[in-house]
């Protein structure tokens, strides 16, 4: 048994440990604050996996999360921590809703693709803004992207008020987006829609892009070592901008997909959508690898679905899943700090990309 564990690379162990930590945290929270413990535990942990509809609901839920996570992997691989993906996601969802609701008379084959295109473009443009600021004026990209996210949050509230608001619905919700504009189901009888296939395709394409193409090599080289990319003549600015545009496009696409079947209305409740937050966390846990990001998305999605079911049942807050998620990431960072020098095959495990020493400078500085 010991030998088997030794063969598993350390980072994988750390990831599993982080996942376990998240589960432990949820477990503790439920035990502490719930009266009907057994019931609640069942609802939280078992119910999301118990039926086909629950499982397809889970997959549906993580579809937009996966787009955000994929976008994050691209920018994180490039070491430009541009979190305007949240803003891209939000604004794209908002504008797509407006577009769909106001184009009610037009045919489906025009509206749906157009909506997807709009979402993608809006997403790319929004994410490019902090990128440009970093390029031209060396403004810290994380800071400006976060401020932009707050800006878009307020802006979308304004847009909602003026264009979408359904006076009959609860506060802060838009009209319902007509069913005919939703993406078609792929598995009849379930809620699984075309968006899932899009996500799978995006995953495959992104993997090929990052690891099997010239641009992906450039992205990873620029993120891995500034000195090497300078040496070799790779243009940082060009590569970084390309990566950010791509990431923004992915996040925007995710926002569009969300509005076309996964959420029936555009809802604004003042906070950032947890889907986007989870996407970021999933990318961090996956160490910016697209394939691992799917598993991490599934895991966090599972936690969220459990929390949502529990909330419907007893009013337990859904934020507990996000809380557990952040705790797991912090735990993962702490483990990755390499403080425990366990030799594996005689060598120390290579440090992960997510928790890198300060020796190599990163962030928005370009040029």
């Amino acid at each position, binding site marked *: 048994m010991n030998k088997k564990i030794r063969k598993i690379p350390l980072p994988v162990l750390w990831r599993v440990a982080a996942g376990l930590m998240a589960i432990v945290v949820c477990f503790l929270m439920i035990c502490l604050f719930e009266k009907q413990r057994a019931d609640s535990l069942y609802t939280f942990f078992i119910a999301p996996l118990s039926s086909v509809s629950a499982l397809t609901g889970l997959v549906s839920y993580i579809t937009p999360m996966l787009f955000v996570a994929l976008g994050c992997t691209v920018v994180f691989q490039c070491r430009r921590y541009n979190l305007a993906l949240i803003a891209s996601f939000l604004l794209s969802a908002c504008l797509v809703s407006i577009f769909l609701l106001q184009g009610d008379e037009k045919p489906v084959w025009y509206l749906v693709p157009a909506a997807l295109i709009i979402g993608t473009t809006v997403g790319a443009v929004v994410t490019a803004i902090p990128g440009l600021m970093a390029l031209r004026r060396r403004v810290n990209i994380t800071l400006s992207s976060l401020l932009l996210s707050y800006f878009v949050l307020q802006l979308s509230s304004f847009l909602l008020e003026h264009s979408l608001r359904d006076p009959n619905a609860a506060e802060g919700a838009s009209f319902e987006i007509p069913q005919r504009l939703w993406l078609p189901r792929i598995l009849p009888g379930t809620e699984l829609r075309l968006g899932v296939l899009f996500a799978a395709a995006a995953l495959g394409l992104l993997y090929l892009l990052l690891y099997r193409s010239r641009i992906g090599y450039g992205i990873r080289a620029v993120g891995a070592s500034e000195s090497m990319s300078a040496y070799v003549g790779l243009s940082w600015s060009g590569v970084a901008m390309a990566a950010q545009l791509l990431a923004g496009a992915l996040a925007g696409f995710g926002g569009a997909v969300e509005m076309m079947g996964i959420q029936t209305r555009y809802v604004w409740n003042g906070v950032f959508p947890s889907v986007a937050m989870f996407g970021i966390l999933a990318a961090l846990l996956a160490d910016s690898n697209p394939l691992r990001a799917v598993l991490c998305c599934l895991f966090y999605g599972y936690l969220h679905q459990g929390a949502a079911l529990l909330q419907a049942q007893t009013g337990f807050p859904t934020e507990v899943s996000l809380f557990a998620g*952040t705790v797991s990431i912090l735990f993962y960072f702490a483990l990755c700090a390499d403080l425990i020098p366990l030799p594996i095959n005689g060598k120390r495990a290579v440090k992960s990309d997510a928790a890198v020493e300060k020796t190599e400078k990163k962030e928005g500085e370009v040029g």
Partner: protein
Amino acid sequence: MAQLIELLRQMGAAVFDNGYLVRLLAVCTPLLLAAMGLVIARRSGVFFLAAEGVMTFSGMAAYFADALVCRALLAGAEQGSAEYEQLMARGARVGWMVGLLVGMIAGMLLAMLFALFLLRFKTDELLAGVVFNIFALSVSGMCLHLFDREDLLVSSAQVGALPVLSIPSLAQVPVLGGLLGSTGWLTYFSLLVPPAVFYLLNCTDFGLRLRAAEENPAALIGTGWSVQRTQLYGMLFAGGAVSLAGVAIALMPPQPVYTLQPNGAGYLAFAAVWASGGGILKSCVSVLLLGIVDACTDVWQGLSVPSGLISALLYAAALAGLWLHAHNLKRRGKVRLQMQQQIALGEEFPDRKKRWFRGGLRGKRKS
């Protein structure tokens, strides 16, 4: 058109109202405290992006402690009875003290945890900051819902606010009377903080060490403290100031309000400090400018200007500030090249001595 002019007139009237100045001070207080904490952090070389999270966390802790205490005091008393009024007054007197204490402790704990991750675990600053911020958001949402569910809290109307310094005689003063009568103690205290920070950074040995930690850690070798230790001590101060800022937001007189909506004050203060290059006076001016815009958004709420748009204006202002303050790299490079060409081709050669320090004084900092 006439409507627009009427609207503008109303907006102008609102700004020149006494209420505006009160609001301005109320808004500037936490921003100033946070900015001063961030100045200390920056001058010790720590990228304290988690300031937003620490503020959210300490504000949440302060509010909940206050509300819990008030609730506990009011338990058992009949609503509307004289006893109830008495207990409410008592709650108003005591609640804020408990809130302040608990908030400070909570904020400092989170700040120290962040310092641990940054200095000991050597986690990437940007990622750690972002994760801590999401952590704080999730915790605050979770706690609000949990406490609400158990009905442990009083309504926000009954939560004790931070005390106000009101001197009746001063209230008679013509223009500033209304202002002086309703400004909190904390605002006056916060006005003392910038000089204190100036003193700390420039006139004490401790402050010089902090600055060495930022500008050239190698200089600390003979001083007996390692770089990490110096930065940790700096973070104690920074964390304290930022926690106080969080408490100030949560328990702001005249009435504390607690919403789940993140207000991004930490990021705004961060933008103010970074745009000012870490200078104390410049940061204060930036905070004032941001405060002016923020107070406008509050004061214009009732008018027919779309609220989301005005709120968005604040973040746009912060972004614009970052852009304007940052150096235009291209132009600088051109100017430098011209100067060098003149020197190379010119008749007299400049002073032959070589400077050991290359680059601007603050050139290496994350801009």
